[in-house]
C-alpha cells in the first residue's frame, strides 16, 4: 500500500514538474543558417530544437518586432527581408531592401529599418508598415556592413569594411553626418546600455574602437591578446552587451574565444572558449546565458556567464550566422 502511495505521489510530482516546465516556457532562440537557407528554432529552457523553418535564400541578420510578434530575417540572395510570424513560424510577408541585404537594424520606435547593401555601397531605409523603401543613402563606404541605431533613434552608425570607417547617417533625412576612421576591417557596432558610447569591432585589427556617441571621437581602443593564440587569429566580429550595463561580450572569430570586457574600465576580464569561427552573439534578459554561433563548426555554444564557460553546444544548420533570443 505504501509503495502504491509513493508511486502515486511521484507521478503527481512528475506531472506537476512537466506542467511547471511547460508554464515556465521562457523563450525561444532563433539561429539563421546562411549555408542551409533555414532557421533553427530552439527552446531556451530545454535547449532542444523545436523546429527548423524556411528562412529564404541565404538568411543572415535577424531582428524581432515585439509588438507584432514578427521576426525579420535578411535573405541576402533574395534581396528582401522576410517577415516570419513567430506563432505560426511561417513567412507572412517581405520588406523591400535593395541588393544583397546583410546586416540591418530597426529604429527603437519600430517604424523604419536600415539595411546595408554590401555590393552597392549603399544603405537603404525601409518603412516597416508599408514594407516599401523610403530612401537610399549612397556612398556609405565600400562594403558597408554593421548597422546600428543610436538608442534615441536619431542616427545610424554604419561600418565600412574596405574603407575602414564608421559612417554616421541621419536615416530620416538621408544625410551623411560624419565619417570616422577606425581600425582595420570594421564589422559590427553596438551601443553601451546608457547610450553614451558606440563600440565597433575591427576584424583585422584584432581590436574594438570605442567612440563617444555624441562627439564621434575615438575615446579608447581595446586590443585583444591571449597567450597561446596568434594575434592574427584574433578576428573580432559581433557583440552582446549585458543588460545590466557592466559587460560586453565580443566574439573573436578564428580565435574560437569570446572576450569578456568590463564596460567601465575597458579591461578584458576573461576569454571564454567557444567553437570554430565564433561570430554571432546574443544574451538572455537575466544576463546569465550567452549564446554564440560558430560559423565553421555548424553549431552554437551555450555559455554560462557566471562560470564563464561553455556548458552546452547544439548542432544547427550549415554556417550559422545570427542568433536572436526572444523572451
Amino acid at each position, binding site marked *: 500500500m505504501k509503495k502504491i502511495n509513493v508511486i502515486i505521489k511521484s507521478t503527481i510530482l512528475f506531472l506537476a514538474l512537466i506542467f511547471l516546465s511547460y508554464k515556465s516556457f521562457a523563450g525561444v532562440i532563433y539561429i539563421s543558417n546562411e549555408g542551409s537557407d533555414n532557421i533553427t528554432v530552439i527552446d531556451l529552457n530545454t535547449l532542444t530544437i523545436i523546429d527548423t523553418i524556411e528562412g529564404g535564400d541565404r538568411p543572415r541578420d535577424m531582428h524581432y518586432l515585439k509588438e507584432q510578434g514578427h521576426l525579420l530575417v535578411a535573405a541576402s540572395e533574395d534581396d528582401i527581408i522576410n517577415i516570419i510570424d513567430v506563432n505560426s513560424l511561417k513567412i507572412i510577408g517581405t520588406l523591400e531592401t535593395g541588393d544583397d541585404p546583410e546586416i540591418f537594424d530597426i529604429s527603437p520606435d519600430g517604424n523604419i529599418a536600415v539595411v546595408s547593401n554590401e*555590393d552597392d*555601397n549603399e544603405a537603404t531605409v525601409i518603412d516597416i508598415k508599408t514594407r516599401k523603401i523610403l530612401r537610399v543613402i549612397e556612398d556609405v*563606404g565600400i*562594403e558597408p556592413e554593421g548597422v546600428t541605431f543610436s538608442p534615441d533613434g536619431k542616427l545610424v552608425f554604419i561600418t565600412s*569594411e*574596405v574603407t*575602414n570607417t564608421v559612417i554616421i547617417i541621419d536615416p530620416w533625412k538621408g544625410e551623411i553626418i560624419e565619417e570616422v576612421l577606425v581600425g*582595420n576591417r570594421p564589422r559590427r557596432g553596438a551601443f553601451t546600455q546608457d547610450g553614451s558610447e558606440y563600440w565597433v569591432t575591427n576584424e*583585422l585589427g584584432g581590436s574594438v574602437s570605442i567612440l563617444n556617441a555624441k562627439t564621434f571621437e575615438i575615446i579608447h581602443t581595446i586590443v585583444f591578446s591571449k597567450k597561446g593564440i596568434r594575434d592574427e587569429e584574433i578576428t573580432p566580429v559581433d557583440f552582446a552587451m549585458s543588460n545590466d550595463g557592466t559587460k560586453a561580450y565580443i566574439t573573436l572569430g578564428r580565435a574560437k574565444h569570446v572576450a569578456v570586457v568590463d564596460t567601465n574600465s575597458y579591461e578584458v576580464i576573461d576569454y571564454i572558449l567557444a567553437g570554430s569561427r565564433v561570430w554571432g552573439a546574443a544574451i538572455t534578459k537575466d544576463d546569465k546565458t550567452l549564446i554564440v554561433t560558430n560559423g565553421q563548426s555548424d553549431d552554437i555554444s551555450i555559455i554560462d556567464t557566471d562560470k564563464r564557460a561553455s556548458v552546452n553546444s547544439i548542432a544547427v544548420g550549415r554556417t550559422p550566422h545570427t542568433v536572436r533570443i526572444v523572451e
Partner: protein
Amino acid sequence: MNLIYKILINIIFIGLTFFSLQANDNPKFNIGYYDLENDIRYSEWGIHPVDIRSDTNKTYKKPVAGAELGLKDIKPFQRMAKVNFELLTKSIKDTENIGEIIYNHILENNIKIIITDLPKNELLKVVTKVSDLNISLMNISERDNSIRSEQCHENLFHIIPSNRMLTDSLAQYLSDKKWRKVLILTGPLKEDEEKSNSFKESAKQFGLKVVDERKFLLGNDPRARDQNDLDFLTGSNKYDAVYISDTHREFSYKVPFATQQPAAVVGSAGLIARAWHWSYLRHGAPQVHGRFERMHNRRMTEENWASWVAMRMVAEALVRFKKDDNEINFSKTFIDSNYKIGGSKGPALNFRPWNRQLRQTIMISSENWVTSIAPLEGFVHRDNNLDTIGMDAKTSKCNIN
C-alpha cells in the same frame, strides 16, 4: 519679404557651391602605373591554344584593370586622406630605354608612388634608374625569387607572391597529403628552371623526395620522344605527384590525367598555387570578385588582385600615416609594424621587412575551386605562420636592413 527670401536662398546656394568647390580643392595625389605595350604574358590570343576557344573576345587581360577597380574603391578614402587620387598609366614600347622613360614620366607628372607590371629585366632597369628619386615601386606581376633575395632593393615592394611562396605552398599541401615522392618536369625557359629550382628547395624544407627531374619540350619530333611524349616523360619511376614548371602553360595543360602513374599534377597545371582565384568564397572575396566583374566583364586574375591591393595600400598608408604637409615616406610606412591591410583573403597583410615581400595566404586551386589555403594548418612559425611560406629572414640573401 519675397526678395529677402530669394536673397537668403541665393546665399545658401552660394555657400553650398563654395563648400562643394572646397571639397574638390584637395591636392592631386598621382599614382603611376607602368606596363609593356607588347607583353607576351597577356598576348591577345593567349599563349596556349586553349585560350583561343575559352577566352575569345576578352583581349583586355592586363592587370591595370585591377588598379582601375582599386582607384574606384579608394575614392571614398579621399574624404579622410584629403587628397584626390589619380591613376596615371603608361604602356611602354621601348624596353631598351624604359628606365629613362619612367624616370621622366615620374618627374613630369609629380608622381608619388608607382605600380609596375614589368618582367624582371625591365623591372631591374627601372629600379636602378629611379633609385635617386627615393620613390617606392610596387611589383604586381614578377614572381622571380632573386629580386627578393640577392637582387632586392629597399624601395622595391612585392605585392605578388614569389615563386618560393608558391612552391612552398604546394610542398606543404603534398606533405600534408603524404604524397611525398615527386617527379619534376621542367620546361625549356629560364623561368621554368627558376620555378623547378624553387620547388626543389621547398621539397627539401618540407620533407618531400624528388625522384627525378626531366626536361620537356613542346613539339612532335619523333627524335625527341623522351622529351615530348608523356608516356616517356612520366614512365619508369614510382611517384605520388608530378610537379611541372611551364611558365607559358603551353605543355602543362595536357599533363593531368595523362601520367603513367596515377598521380596528382601540381605546379603550372592541375593544382596551382595562386595569389587569388575567382572561386574563393570567404573573407569578403566574393564582393571583390563581384565589383571587378561588373566593371570589366571578366574574371579577376592574380595580377589583377595584386594591382587592386596595391592601390588600396597607397590609400591606407595615406589615411593613417600622412604628415600634415601631405608628405609620406612609403618605404618607411610599408614596413612600419602598425601598417597592415585587408586583402579580402583572410588575415591582415603586411610586408616582410627583410625583403619587402607582402605576407599573404596562398590559394591552392584547381581550375574552378580553391582546394586549400596555405599556410596549411600544422605548419607553424616562431613569429608569424604566414612566414612558413617563402623566404624567411634567414634564407633570403637580401641585405637592406
